[in-house]
Structures are given as C-alpha cells and as structure tokens.
C-alpha cells in the first residue's frame, strides 16, 4: 500500500472517513454497478431510459441536499428553490434565443442564477446567525412565497422577452439539451439524455466525494458536529456554511436544468410544499451522512412511488407514508448506513470465525 500509483492517488482524493465505501471491494462493486447503469439503455426502450433519467435527475437534487444537510447540518427545504430557478431560467433563455447556441448558453446561465440565489439566501441566513430549525423554516417559507408568486404570473404581462412565465399553467416548449453548433449539433433525448444525466450524476457524486473528503470536508463535518469548537479552531463557520449552501445550490440548479429539458416544461409545483419535502425524505431514508445513500434512496423511492401510482391503488399514499414513518423511527440514520453497519458486523463475525478456525497466520491487514 505504499506505492503511489495513479489508482492510489485517485482513491486518496475520493476516500476518507466521511464517505462510505473506501475499499477495493467497494470500488469494484461500484464499477460493476456503473457498468450496468451505462448498459441499461441498450436493453430497454427509449421510454424506460427516459423514465429512469428522471430519477437520476432527482438523485442529483438529493445529492445537493445531502451535502448541505448530511455533511454540514443545515436542513434546507430550499433546494427546490434553486432547482426551480434554474429550470425557469433555462426555459426563459432558450425560448428567447432559439438555437443550439441559446441552449448552450442557457445551461451555465441557469446554474449561475441558481448559485447566485443560493448565495444570497445563504448570506441572508448565515450571516444573520440563523441556525437549525429556523433555517429550515425560512427556506420552507421561501418556497411557499415563490409558489404563490409564480402561480399568479399568468397574464401576458408576465413575460421575459419571448418567454411567458405562464403562471399556474407553467412554461411549455422548453427544448431538449443540445450541444454543438448548427450542423454538428447533437440533441439529447431518450437514451442519449439518459447517458447525459448519468454522467452528470457520477461527476457530481465524485465531485462531492472529493469535497467531503478533503480539508473542507472536515470543516463541514465539524460544523455539523460541534459548531463552537470549530469556530474556536479558527474557522469562520458562516463562511463554511455559506460555501456549502452555495455549492448545494449550484448542484440543485444543474438538476433543475436537466428537469426542465426532460419534460420540456416547468411549472410552479416545483416550488410546492410537497415537492420541497421530497429531497428531505430521500436523504432521510438514504442516510443523511451518505452521498451514495442519497442516490440509491432517491432512485428506489421514486421508482417505488411510481409503481404504486401505476397500480392505481388508493392505498399508494398510505403505503408511502407508513414506509417513511417506519424508516425514520427504526433506522434514524437511514437505510444505507444501516445496511453498511450490518454488513460490517457480519463480515467481522465471518472474519473472526475464519481466524479462529484457521489460526492467526492469515489475518488480513486492514488498512486504515
């Protein structure tokens, strides 16, 4: 373990005590899962690929909350604010500049707007020493204000250039994401769009892994665990929180852009109380302190909810509610950490048994 091969350096950046999964076994499993995910569209229809792409977009949104809440202890109901702002901005820009150039410009502009909004809201809160539950409330109230406001922008006076905000009816006609210029441009729809979302999800995941396992990550976790002590160590916790919140906003914004392009549509329900709660649900179930947990929980939960809706059973919402209730009560740290715990203890027991029967000569070196 002392050679500094490329792989080790790579692993060094993305591993650490702040994320689950730091062994070779994990990475092998991860690579297999990733390969399966990439191969998926080859075996299924355009519809199914597009359907799963939506869940991947939600997973990116979940990641944005996971890093803000799980790692820095800031419960924000406002991720959907940045999600929605980015989606609407993407729509506004692409409806005004109707070309591939317009689309390519719209993506960074939209993410930029989301980031700016996150920065502003974060500054307002953290530099005003607002903490804990009050952050949750302020972010919650912001989503409601936005929903109420956007729902009444129905008149034709509510337009930015050629783009009508559309009020309650929303903004249709948003184009697919396309890259390239003129003849060489590629539009992302169906399977191609799925791959785009998957790539962006993986990049976000790795980006956040690097962030949480680096120096800054320790500051984040410190803020979550014991703010005062971290402050005494010389960190400006307001800056830490603001930075994380802004990063979370940018990632939520990215998800928002993809979302608007997925349905070619966006409406004020992205700001609704219900939708604002979903990221909290996904992250709670997946394990607040686990990025991977957030991703897995989001995809599974959303797939599960969709299946229930398809059955048309009137018990669908009851089942979802009770399931969540059970998870919070029984597995307060989330499912993935729970599974991890069980796996760890099972493996330990297995190892102990092996040692006892074989003798201590084959004790595996456990790298720390």
């Amino acid at each position: 373990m002392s050679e500094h091969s490329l792989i080790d350096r790579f692993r060094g950046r993305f591993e650490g005590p702040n994320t689950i999964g730091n062994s070779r076994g994990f990475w092998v499993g991860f690579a297999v899962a990733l390969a399966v995910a990439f191969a998926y569209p080859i075996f299924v229809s355009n519809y199914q690929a597009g359907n799963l792409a939506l869940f991947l977009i939600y997973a990116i949104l979940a990641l944005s909350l996971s890093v803000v809440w799980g790692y820095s202890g800031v419960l924000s109901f406002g991720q959907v604010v940045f999600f929605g702002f980015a989606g609407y901005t993407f729509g506004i820009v692409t409806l005004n500049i109707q070309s591939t150039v317009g689309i390519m410009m719209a993506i960074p502009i939209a993410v930029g707007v989301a980031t700016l909004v996150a920065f502003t809201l974060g500054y307002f809160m953290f530099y005003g020493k607002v903490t804990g539950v009050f952050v949750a409330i302020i972010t919650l109230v912001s989503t409601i204000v936005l929903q109420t406001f956007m729902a009444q922008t129905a008149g034709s006076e509510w337009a930015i250039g050629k783009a009508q905000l559309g009020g309650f009816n929303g903004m249709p006609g948003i184009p697919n994401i396309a890259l390239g210029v003129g003849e060489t441009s590629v539009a992302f729809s169906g399977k191609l769009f799925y791959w785009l979302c998957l790539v962006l999800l993986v990049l976000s995941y790795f980006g956040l892994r690097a962030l949480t396992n680096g120096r800054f990550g320790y500051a984040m976790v410190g803020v979550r665990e014991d703010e005062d002590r971290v402050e005494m160590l010389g960190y400006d916790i307001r800056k830490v929180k603001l930075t994380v919140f802004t990063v979370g906003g940018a990632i939520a914004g990215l998800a928002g852009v993809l979302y608007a392009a997925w349905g070619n549509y966006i409406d004020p329900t992205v700001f609704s109380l219900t939708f604002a709660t979903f990221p909290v649900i996904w992250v709670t179930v997946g394990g607040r302190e686990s990025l991977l947990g957030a991703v897995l929980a989001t995809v599974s939960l959303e797939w599960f909810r969709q299946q229930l809706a398809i059955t048309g059973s009137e018990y669908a919402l009851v089942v979802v509610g009770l399931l969540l209730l059970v998870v919070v009560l029984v597995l307060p740290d989330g499912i993935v950490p729970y599974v991890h715990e069980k796996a760890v203890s099972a493996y330990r027991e297995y190892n102990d048994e092996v040692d006892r029967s074989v003798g201590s000569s084959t004790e595996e070196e456990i790298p720390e």
Partner: protein
Amino acid sequence: MSDGLSSRRGFLASSAVLAGTALAGCSGGTASSSDTVTLGILEDRSGNFALVGDPKHKASLLAIEEINADGGIMGNEIEVFDPDPQSDNQRYQELTDRAIRQENVDALWAGYSSATREAIRPIINRNEQLYFYTTQYEGGVCDKTTFAVGPTARQQLGTVLPYLREEFGPDIYTIAADYNFGQLSADWVKVLANENDANVLGEEFIPLSETDFSSTINNIQEADPDFVMSMLVGANHTSFYEQKASAGLDIPIGTSTAMAQGYEHRRISPPAMANIYAGVNYMEEVPTESNTNDGGFVDRYFDMYPDAPYLNEEAETNYFSMYMYKEAVEQAGTFEQPEVIEALESGISLGTERAPEAPEGQTIELDGATHHVDHHMWVMKADEDHNIEAVENRKVPETFLSETVGCDLREEAEQTQYTPVDYYQEAK
C-alpha cells in the same frame, strides 16, 4: 472505514442498483392483442382534485362498460390503462409518457386542470398522440392531436352573463381564482360585458390556497354591483359561499365553476348557494329526458356506482367523448390515430342518447376545424333549499377559435393556445 469489510457492502450496493434497474425494466407493459384496444384514462382519484376527478374516471368507465357490453369498437374489446396521477403534474408527465410509449394507448383521456394539460401537451405533441381533454377550461387551444371537448369559458360565461344582465342590471363585480383559468375567464367577462352593454366595476383575484374571504365580501359590498361573476376554483374557495351567506351578502352570482363540478349545493348547508346561477353544459340536475328518466344517464351512473356522491359536469364530457371516439373509429375503419383524427375532423355529432346535455331531438357537434364542441348550454339556478332549476338553455357554438382566431386544424396543424387579450381591446 477503509477496510475489506466494505467489499461486502460494495456488492450490496451494486446488487441493489442492479435489482433496481432490472425491476424498473421489468415493469412490462400490456401489449394490445389483436382484438382489444387499449385506452388511457388518467384522472385524479387522490390529492387536491380527487373530488372532481373521480366522477370523470367513473363516467369513462361507465361508457367503456356500455360499449364493451355492446360488442366493443369494431368488435374489439376496450381495455383500460387507468393509474392514479394523484393530482400531481409530475406524475401526469410520467404516466402520460408511459401510457403512450409503453402501453401504446390508442387514445388518451387525461387531466382535470389546465396546468395538467399544459404539462403533458409537450409529450402528447412529441408523440402525436390522440388526446381528449374534457374539463371546462379557458379556451383557445388549437392543437392538431388535442380535442378539448369541454365547454370553454366563453361558452359558459357567454350563457349566464347575458341572462343575469337581463334579469338584474348592468353592473358586474368579478371574483376569480388567481391563476390562468381565473384570469382568462375574467378577461372573457370583460369581453362579454362589452358585447352585452354591461360594466365591470372591479375584478378581484384570490390565490387558490386562500380560505378567508372577509375582505372580498367587504369589497363586493363597497362596489355594490347588480350581480357578481365568480370563477372561484377548488375546495378552499368553497368557503366563500359559506362566508358570504353568513355575512348576509345576498347578491345574485353567476358562475362557470361552482356547483356543477364540486356539487357545493349538496355539501354546504342551504341557503349558502341560493341565487347562484351556473352556466354549464351539464349538471346532474339537467332536465333532459335522456338524463333524468328511468334508465337514463343518472340512473345508469348510480347503478354502477351506488356510493358515488354526485354526477358532475366533466363526467358527462368524459362520457360522450368516449362515444365520439367510437364513432370516429368506425368511420375511419381503423384505430390508427391519424385516420381517427381525420374522421373526428370531418365533424361528429351526437344526439341526446349519448350526450345527455342535449334535449330530446337535439344534438351537439364536434367542430372539425377547431376540435372543440358546440355545446348545449344551460343556466341552472339554485334556490334557498338548494333545489336546482333550469332557467334557460340553448345551443352555444364555439366562436373564439372558429370565428375570431380562424384556427382550422384541417388546413394547418398547430399546437398553440390563444388568449382573448390578443384579440379584444376590452380584455386588456
């Protein structure tokens, strides 16, 4: 924790993903066999719009059962893909996508609110799916594969406003839900006021979540109109009628939304809904023979659903549009959607038997050019005991798209929604 223990966990993670994707892929669709046809019915049976969406679902199923009992469509039995979108536009998008690309529905009925329609129209348009939108709405949708067969705001308000102007006088105060439908309906009130020599004294828009109407009531009292036009929507807005009655506000109210959809006159104690005049194409109380006779529409509905609370306006539209579809398929001789659309565009008319809103001997017509229906409209009045009486009825054709805008989908395929502000000065 960077140790070999994590490999077990790593495999758990990857197998979870594997299982998830496999399962997601395995939710197979029903392939229509050669002697069945699959129709998609996506109506809200839970969530905010359950109250008004459920009757739509039920009425569609009633029509389907009748048609199947009669041999189906061209000998094909109708099968239904009818999940519950839970009043959630996100769900609607997913389920519409699934209905079209996985279940391969030959025709789709979906959505209560206009927002839902707009959320799924991109998907509909992308796949050129035949789509029936059956709720009353603000009007103006000129779309090649969409058939908005419910009454439009112009048809509904255009029935009740002139009647009230005659009865009570020219001064109007408008209250409407603060979103597209409400705002566009209010625009139509201004257009109709202009056409009927009336004045709109003031307009007020109320957010959908609002339950406190005290200031609205005071505003009405201050304006002192001859009658009020109300386009309030949803369960929260129902409180207005309670509160107005309690405040002793005794003014006639014309509406396109109250009573016919959410049966307030059954749910709220009298006399809260007294002197409310609904301009609608259908309500359970519409006095046509095919509706109220023994074995009529109402009877058949409650035979199938004895516990249902009410047979509402949109339900009848779901019902007759199913029969329109059947006729169009029989005319076209095929289920292929472009041909069926062409058959629908040749103009389909239904008699009172299939469209109980029309009195004996009369018909309603699907206008092929605009994809809208020339409805038979009624002014239905509630008295102090909440008994409903029909005070006027006549055929009201769709005029906005056909005459003012000039939308002809047989000539030119479009996918637009037109609004009155672009065509009428007074709507601004």
